[in-house]
């Protein structure tokens, strides 16, 4: 499995953990009801956490990969570890193409989420519900983007 596929799996785990944490916090907020301001604040906090999780996953994953390569492929040859790491992380046309298409998948899901949220509110759902539909779409979009990345890297989803 490629470096980018493994990183995508790490991102998926991070996103799922963050969504689970949000659900736990949101379910514990009894009494806030339709207070849009408090929900917006909570979502902003989790948006910040999201960025932190992405950065931490990136750092931990990079270190973990270096250790893994050293243990399995390069033993104690540090220059070989660096070579393998560089060749694994190199940005090339296939990666760019996959990222572009994965980003498109994300945008489609988020866009659909916006439409569903607006439709739900037009049909009488509360603004808080609409906001949560949109938030869910962002999370699902991120998951879809990473799943697409894995499928494309492993199955050759991008044909050039």
């Amino acid at each position, binding site marked *: 499995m*490629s470096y980018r596929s493994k990183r995508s799996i790490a991102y998926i785990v991070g996103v799922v953990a963050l969504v689970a944490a949000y659900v736990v916090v949101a379910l514990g907020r009894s009494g806030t009801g339709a207070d849009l301001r408090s929900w917006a604040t909570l979502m902003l906090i989790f948006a910040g956490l999201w960025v932190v999780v992405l950065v931490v996953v990136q750092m931990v994953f990079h270190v973990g990969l270096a250790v893994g390569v050293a243990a399995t492929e390069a033993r104690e040859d540090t220059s070989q570890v660096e070579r393998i790491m560089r*060749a*694994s992380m*190199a940005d*090339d046309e*296939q990666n760019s193409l996959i990222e572009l298409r994965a980003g498109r998948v994300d945008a489609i899901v988020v866009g659909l989420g916006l439409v569903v949220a607006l439709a739900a509110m037009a049909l009488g759902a509360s603004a808080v519900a609409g906001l949560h539909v949109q938030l869910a779409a962002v999370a699902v979009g991120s998951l879809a983007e990473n799943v697409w990345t894995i499928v494309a890297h492993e199955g050759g989803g991008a044909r*050039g």
Partner: protein
Amino acid sequence: MAERLRITNNIRRLRFFADEMTQLELAERIGASRQTIVNLEAGKYSPSLELAFRIADAFGVPIGEVFAHEPA
């Protein structure tokens, strides 16, 4: 829309005849990732013309010796 051509390549064979050049070495020479070489050899990815020429240059052969296509 025209049917997609099936493009094949001899990269694995050319690596063998280039003193068993590793996928890592080829990736470094052409400035691509190792995964791209893996996917190219498996026929899962068709490169751009530029990358195809870089691969041919890495082996010192004409591009036609690296890639071929089967009629649609």
